[in-house]
């Protein structure tokens, strides 16, 4: 018996999850077949009669059994009957030299997988094994699929696909319906060009430049993505996509799509500024974003400020009733929320951050807060790269501008290693953005005062209540930079202690 090496490799890899029991009383035939089966199966058992076959079956539970009929001690038909009583899903292939109608009938009655006439031809065996693999794979994938559905949040309402590497091996009915196919096999073909089904939309996941959608999801297991896919009639739908690998089944993963089209959020991601401006005030639309996060169990980030410090923790939207939204977040964040009556929510799924107000109730035992007002924040206060703090009295600044000093009527509002926000009661005449100044900072917290002298640029000037707020940017070096890092770090610790110690 000869076969093509590549075909052999392929079949072997397909047969890899399964083992075979071969039962034959003719030693010559058995040895010959054995040579072929060891090439195909990782695990292969052989027995010389039905009784031995049954014993091996009980020990090893192979998924496929090929058996002769006439054998001493126990014949193949009786053995098949007993095996199918133990494990009805076993694929039994009867191999007989006598093509007898009653034997065929009996085989059908027992529910054996196939009935072959000896001498066995290689082609026939391979073809039969291939059919065996298809049926066994289907059952196995269905089992993996069913067992792992629960790992998908809200799976009842999602389109779900089970993947093995890049290939679809199982899908639920809503998924087949959406993509307009009737079988998993059809979907498998359609999925090969799935990158073309993911439509371009601002901030959404689709193939472009250097982004390969599958690379992106498979290297961010559990992350949620916005996607846009059209129905077969060309109507665009908005889905939240997630990818979960199945840890104990190597190579398998579940892809799920939650349809959030009816929340009408697609236009929110539109970069058209005027339209966005209008929508950002529309609480109904913003509520849709929160609902999308809730339905998908999406983690959001909750942000507050305390004397310049950003306080951020994870949050989860748990319920929504009428206008009221309930958010779970740790104690420390609730405390910050209570202190400031407002907070910000961000998520990779949102087009902008959400400013939340109208706090109804904070429940420290339940670690949750309920709020009823939400708008999109066009200029987000939380995109901060550096840590800022409100300084204490040990940091002073003198500003030198066109030969004059300003120190007594200036106050530092907050400071970071990149910049400083300063309040002036009176602005120097001609002072404007992009002006160059010299800043002299003095830190007097230790015995020896530290002086940091730097050039700085006026970034922005704003006026409120007859006071002027000026933002300076600077680039510090060496000792000066480290001294300020040190100051900010110490100040941060003090502020954290102060914040934690606050009795509310």
């Amino acid at each position, binding site marked *: 018996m000869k076969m093509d090496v590549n075909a052999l490799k392929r079949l072997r890899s397909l047969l890899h999850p399964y083992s075979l029991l071969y039962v034959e009383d003719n030693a010559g035939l058995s040895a010959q077949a054995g040579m072929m089966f060891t090439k195909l199966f990782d695990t292969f058992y052989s027995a010389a009669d039905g009784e031995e076959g049954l014993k091996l079956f009980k020990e090893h539970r192979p998924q496929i059994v090929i058996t002769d009929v006439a054998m001493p001690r126990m014949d193949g038909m009786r053995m098949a009957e007993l095996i199918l009583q133990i494990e009805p899903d076993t694929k039994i292939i009867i191999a007989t030299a006598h093509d007898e109608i009653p034997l065929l009938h009996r085989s059908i009655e027992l529910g054996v997988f196939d009935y072959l006439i000896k001498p066995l031809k290689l082609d026939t065996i391979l073809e039969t094994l291939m059919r065996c693999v298809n049926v066994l794979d289907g059952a196995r994938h269905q089992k993996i699929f069913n067992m792992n559905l629960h790992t998908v949040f809200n799976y009842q309402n999602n389109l779900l696909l089970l993947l093995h590497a890049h290939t679809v091996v199982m899908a639920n009915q809503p998924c087949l319906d959406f993509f307009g196919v009737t079988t998993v096999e059809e979907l498998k073909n359609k999925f090969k060009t799935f990158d073309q089904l993911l439509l371009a939309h601002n901030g959404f996941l689709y193939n472009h430049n250097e982004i390969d959608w599958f690379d992106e999801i498979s290297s961010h297991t*559990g992350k949620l993505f916005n996607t846009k896919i059209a129905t077969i009639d060309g109507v665009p739908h908005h889905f939240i996509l997630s990818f979960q690998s199945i840890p104990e089944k190597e190579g398998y993963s579940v892809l799920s799509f939650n349809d959030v089209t009816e929340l009408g959020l697609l236009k929110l991601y539109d970069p058209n500024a005027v339209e966005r401006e209008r929508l950002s005030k529309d609480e109904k639309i913003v509520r849709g974003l929160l609902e999308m996060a809730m339905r998908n169990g999406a983690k959001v980030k909750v942000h507050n400020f305390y004397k310049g410090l950003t306080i951020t923790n994870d949050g989860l939207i748990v319920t929504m009733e009428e206008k009221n939204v309930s958010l779970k977040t740790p104690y420390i964040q609730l405390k910050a929320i209570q202190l400031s009556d407002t907070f910000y929510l961000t998520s990779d799924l949102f087009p902008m951050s959400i400013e939340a107000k109208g706090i109804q109730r904070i429940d420290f035992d339940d670690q949750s807060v309920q709020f009823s007002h939400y708008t999109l924040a066009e200029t987000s206060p939380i995109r901060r790269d550096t840590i800022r703090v409100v300084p204490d009295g040990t940091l002073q600044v003198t500003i030198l501008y066109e030969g004059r000093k300003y120190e007594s009527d200036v106050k530092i509002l907050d400071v970071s290693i990149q910049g400083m926000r300063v309040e002036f009661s009176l602005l120097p005449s001609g002072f404007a953005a992009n002006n160059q100044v010299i800043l002299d900072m003095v830190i007097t917290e230790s015995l020896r005062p530290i002086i940091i002298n730097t050039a700085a640029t006026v970034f922005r000037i704003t006026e409120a209540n007859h006071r002027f707020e000026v933002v300076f940017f600077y680039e510090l070096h060496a000792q000066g930079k480290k001294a300020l890092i*040190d100051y900010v770090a110490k100040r941060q610790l003090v502020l954290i202690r102060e914040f934690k110690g606050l009795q509310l």
Partner: protein
Amino acid sequence: MKNETILYDDGAHKCIMFALEDEEHQDYSLSVNQYLIIQKGGAILIDPGCGAIFDELYDAISRYIDPSKLKYIFFSHQDPDVAGSISQWSIASSAQLVMSQLWVRFMGHYGLMDMGRIIALEDHGARIKFGKDFLQFIPAHFLHSPGNFSLYDSRSKILFSGDIGAAIASPQNLNKDVDDFNEHRPYLEGFHARYMAGNRFCRAWVHCVRKYDVSIIAPQHGSLFKGENVTKFLEWFETVEGGWEQCEALYG
């Protein structure tokens, strides 16, 4: 002791080892190492250590890259000799801070309030890709910390193993290279027997590590294992017994 060594440099990708310590403790030297990977314009700092060495490490890094260009700072686990300086680094850079999800909420005690800066690793780890290459966070839970990761750099083939492979007071720590594994081994044994959770975890970690082509194992304490010492170390580590095996002795 050399306190700055270039472990790998191909022009576009560079790995540097620092060995800065809190001087007061030099007698009981833990022989602490910090690592920096530079990839084009960005960089990742590994286990930057306690607050006391912040200034010195900041200077050392500055010789290679502007610390504000750090993209990630990786903390293999929560110990103060690993993460004690997290607050300073969060101010000095805009880097994302990468650690096990188990330790996120504890970072407030080191003076970090903005948990938005943290990338919390799930138990099975994660991969950061750059071009054809990648950084892989490999689970190392209970070796010793219950939320612990090693970091493998596919370009340099260096495995940054955190506390795994730590040797206390080995004479071979002096030049930071293990010359003779058998002579070095006694200094590994004491630490690992008491700090590792049990043999099952050691074997699980070795199993994960063997999926990658490793040319250097770089621990947070002590010396580097190179070439055949990598194999020797892995073979030895597979046999290490820890807390589980000594439970009776520990509880009397």
